């Protein structure tokens, strides 16, 4: 069953056509890759999906629910969470608090309960702590819970971003170049983590990646973008052997 449907999606910045007539269908539980050369419009697609940009035309639906015109916050509540190409953590907050921000809309108490430290405060905070700890354990970050996010090594920062995104309990997880800046061993480990997340949380994942080994290793289907338009789309193996795709990546 289709979870995310994108039809004829397009956006122009002034005269520049950043994304043009993009069609894409991602099924429930799929691991889907979005690839393409630099400047092909991949991150723009993420920004369109998460409401950072408003598309000039086209339709985006998640689980049959229209997303076009909604704000980032509403889209997150509707079930899309993301990570960022240039890591965006809450650097001066603890690792634990970073995840607890993700839990914000799922564990609630009102302002006065918090200010007056009513019994509800301790109860909810305690269950938040427990839930956050579970998530941190998945990413092997539980020992770092009290540390400042800024003090984590690069690889762990990427993982923390994924943990925070998962904390918002999304239906669809968008990962923007999760392996950027990682060495082959770290990438290998990340691949395992992504697959583990998918199985454990029954998560549907759309990822942007440059590392072809990672893409061919874990993605079932891919869309290749070039200059904002779809160059090829389909099963990963077929697409990566498509001569047009090879040409776009390697030149003539």
């Amino acid at each position, binding site marked *: 069953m289709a979870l995310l449907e994108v039809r004829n999606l397009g956006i122009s910045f002034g005269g520049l056509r950043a994304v043009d007539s993009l069609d894409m269908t991602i099924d429930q539980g799929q691991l889907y890759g979005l690839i393409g050369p630099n400047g092909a419009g991949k*991150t723009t697609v993420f*920004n369109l999906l998460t409401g*950072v940009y408003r598309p000039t035309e086209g339709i985006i639906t998640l689980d049959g629910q229209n997303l076009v015109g909604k704000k980032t916050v509403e889209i997150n509540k509707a079930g899309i969470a993301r990570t*960022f190409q240039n890591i965006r953590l809450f650097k001066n907050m603890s690792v634990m608090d970073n995840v607890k921000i993700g839990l914000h809309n799922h564990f609630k108490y009102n302002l006065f309960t918090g200010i007056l430290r009513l019994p509800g405060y301790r109860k909810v905070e305690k269950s938040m702590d427990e839930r956050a700890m579970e998530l941190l354990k998945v990413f092997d970050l539980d020992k770092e819970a009290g540390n400042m996010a800024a003090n984590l090594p690069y690889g762990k920062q990427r993982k923390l971003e994924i943990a925070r995104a998962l904390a918002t309990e999304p239906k669809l997880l968008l990962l923007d170049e999760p392996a950027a800046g990682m060495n082959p061993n770290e990438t290998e480990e990340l691949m395992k983590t992504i697959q583990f997340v998918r199985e454990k949380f029954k998560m549907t994942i759309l990822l942007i990646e440059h590392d072809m080994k990672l893409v061919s290793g874990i993605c079932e289907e891919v869309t290749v973008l070039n200059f904002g338009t779809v160059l090829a789309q389909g099963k990963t193996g077929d697409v990566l052997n498509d001569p047009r795709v090879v040409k776009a990546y390697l030149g003539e």
Partner: protein
Amino acid sequence: MDLVINIVEQLINGLRTGSIYALIALGYTMVYGIAKMINFAHGDIIMVGAYSLYVFYGILGLPAAVAVILSIIVCAVLGVVIEKVAYKPLRNAQPLAVLITAIGVSFLLQNLALLIFKATPIPFGSIIRVPSVQIAGIHISGITIVTLVVTTISMILLTLFINKTKAGRAMRAVSEDKGAAELMGISVNGTISLTFAIGSALAAVAGLLFICQYESLQPTLGALPGIKAFVAAVLGGIGSVPGAMLGGIVLGIIESLSKAYISTQLSDAIVFGVLVVVLLVKPSGLLGKIRIEKV
């Protein structure tokens, strides 16, 4: 008829104050364009310029022209020194840290002046000896004429400098992209110093015109025109040179008209009210460029 003459005179008054604001605003905007910081101490450079003139002309008795030139040099050098000592080490720090440092520098200059010259206002006779003129029943004072001539010349020279000279081109390049400019062999530090020097020199000119108008010196004399000029720079779109000129003049005219026809006490409130409204409608100011943070 009287009303028309009165309005025209108020407009000319506004133009005079506004062109002084514009000179100061240029310093804010150039520094912002290049160093991406608000130089809160800029207003106090005006004060330093005014006191320098007082020392060179009033105390040491140097000829007016020499005193003017020396005052401008003092301010230009001071601007460069402030940048090197207080702002340069913070170039990669968060904006709040730089802004607070600038506020610190502003306090420092004011309090140094307070210690040296004391708080009591010092009377100072204008050095401008131009007679006033009467055109079609409209009275224009000598100081107004000099102010308008001096500010117009300064603005034309600045525009030519920025657009026609190599150093001006370097300035525009640095304000566009510091890293790329450096790779092209432009000395970023040198360009920033030059910007501070020019901005402070303009502030000095503004300071000289300012005290020739008010004929009194106080350590805090730069604060209010500084803030107003800053408002002018933001109003016009901070970072934009024509914006600073436009913003300054618009602000001066609004202020003059509201002082004359609404209320002297409320004129500041009206000036700031206009700023708030403009920013709400156009957050980047009248001629400013919008910068969108890349996600």
